[in-house]
């Protein structure tokens, strides 16, 4: 927290809090999109950035969360926000089941397997698996979320729901990072053999982090379903996983502030480049390349000190 001074953070939070007062609905909606991707990227960061497990199929977990909420809401009329924990749970369980036989695979092999899982999930959704997902149409007419008797409808209202959840996530994830669990993930990333050789159950942590990251992506899926009121397979294509992957690496794997900034760039830039019309993705691709070449460690690489403030005191000994 030394590097990003409290003042900068306060300024950032304040501008987000007051943004809906100054921005039009389109701009707020862009911010909402960024918020959603920040959430997803933070959840992927646990797996990819903190634990170093190559995952390019994160959209699968996001999709499962979104579809769980959509199905529960449209079939059983469960209020959409109530489905949040359940979406997380189901996405997390799904991740545990699929990751169990494959987590031992090395880097690039794991990468293709996660791509495969992402594609299998998408194909299953398209083919209306178990008659639940509505095929390529997806599921529509999801009801608007209600919070304390207030129906959330406008982008301005979603803004607070989404960014509130982002804030909560960052709060919890920083604490997680500064704990035994968070450190275990880093040991895993740095050297798996040494981690196992120092008493860390590497298989357990690999699975646990897949489960946790997936559960969080699943909850982001609930927010997505609530915001769009329609979920369809297009929204969970391989491309989404690629975008999330780019956000995490561009931000600097393991760096929460870096990821927030990268989400602004990766989701915000294509909107900004709307002026370029047909060339907007061309410019976007070029910018991605240049940014990576200029900052190979990511925009704001994670520092190695990730201890809670109570431990910092020890340095005075």
């Amino acid at each position, binding site marked *: 927290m030394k590097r990003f001074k409290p003042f900068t953070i306060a300024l950032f939070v304040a501008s987000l809090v007051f943004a809906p007062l100054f921005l039009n609905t389109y701009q707020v909606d862009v911010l909402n999109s960024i918020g959603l991707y920040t959430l997803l990227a933070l959840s992927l960061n646990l797996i*990819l950035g903190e634990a170093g497990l*190559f995952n390019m199929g994160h959209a699968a977990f996001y999709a499962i969360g979104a579809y769980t909420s959509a199905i529960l809401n449209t079939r059983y009329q469960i209020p959409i926000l109530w489905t949040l924990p359940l979406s997380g749970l189901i996405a997390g369980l799904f991740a545990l089941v699929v990751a169990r*036989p*494959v987590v*031992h*695979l*090395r*880097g*690039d*092999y794991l*990468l*293709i*397997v996660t*791509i*495969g*899982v992402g*594609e*299998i999930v998408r*194909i*299953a959704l*398209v*083919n209306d698996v178990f008659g639940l997902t509505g095929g390529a149409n997806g599921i529509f007419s999801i009801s608007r979320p209600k919070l304390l008797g207030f129906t959330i409808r406008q982008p301005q209202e979603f803004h607070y729901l989404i960014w509130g959840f982002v804030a909560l996530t960052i709060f919890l994830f920083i604490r997680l990072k500064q704990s035994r669990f968070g450190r275990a993930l880093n040991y895993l990333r740095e050297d798996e*053999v040494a981690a196992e050789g120092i008493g860390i159950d590497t298989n357990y942590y690999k699975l646990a982090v897949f489960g946790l990251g997936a559960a969080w992506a699943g909850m982001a899926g609930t927010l997505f379903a609530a915001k769009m009121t329609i979920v369809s397979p297009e929204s969970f294509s*391989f491309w989404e996983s*690629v975008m999330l*992957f*780019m956000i995490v*690496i*561009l931000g600097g*794997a393991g760096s929460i502030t870096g990821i927030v900034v990268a989400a602004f760039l990766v989701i915000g830039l294509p909107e900004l480049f709307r002026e370029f019309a*047909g*060339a907007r*993705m*061309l410019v*976007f*691709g*070029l*910018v*991605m*390349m*240049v*940014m*990576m*070449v200029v900052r*190979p*460690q*990511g925009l704001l690489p994670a520092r190695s000190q990730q201890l809670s403030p109570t431990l910092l005191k020890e340095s005075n000994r």
Partner: protein
Amino acid sequence: MEEFIQQLTNGLAVGGIYALIALGYTMVYGVLKLINFAHGDLFTYGAYLGLTLLTSLALTDRLGFTLGMVVLVLMVMGLVAVLGAILERAAYRPLRESPRLSAVVSALGASIFLQNALMLIYGARFQVYPDNILPTATLNIFGLYLPLMRVLIVLASVLMMIVLYVFIQKTRIGTAIRAAAIDQGAARLMGIDVNRVILMVFLLGPALGGIAGLMVGLYYGQVNFTMGWVYGMKAFTAAILGGIGNIPGAMVGGLLLGVIEALGAAYLSIAWKDAIAFCVLILILIIRPTGLLGERVADKI
């Protein structure tokens, strides 16, 4: 049975193309441990360049079919190879000492760039190769319909793979490539110019990918700026299936993936075809974690 064999040949024809593209992934990976996500787009450039050269230079009219084709193939190979080398220079070389995943993101950015550049140059519509460039004879062997060109495509891809294999195994530069793939540092100490090896790999892989693009264009007739994603992903899957970094592995993986897809479509479900292929891939990796022909490296502790 007849249908089975027909499907098998269908699979092999598609698999041959996958294998050619997979070679590019596997060679780059072998030396740089980098997944070149832009490789699929180089394949697309091969298809588009072939189209442009064919229509603007009218090679087959001027030089006759055989000579024209040979010149066309060489030109496409050369141009795509140069493009590959430029890509290496611009997007990967600056990141050689960086974390591996940074180069992956750079590759993804390059892929987006290349794809959209093509869209802006040629437009978003499907581009169509001129009709009747290739002979359209269909062989009828024991009731199997085998278009002549399909047979030739499979033969051509197998031939190119053999040439590449011999090149890698027998020539000096091939040996250097193999050495660099095993240990770059040691290869450098042995006096091998690793930069040259990498350049070579980025010339060879794209050249093969370019030919694959040209063959797809010539045979299937239509090309589209997004086709590289589909083929690229399939070829990458094939390379992993065979054991990435391993050249015969890419060939086996490519052909096998084509066959799995064809048989999966024929006997299980067409709609689930890609999911079936991925399931088979995952099962194979569970049993053999480094692919079919990948070396099983024990942990050096």
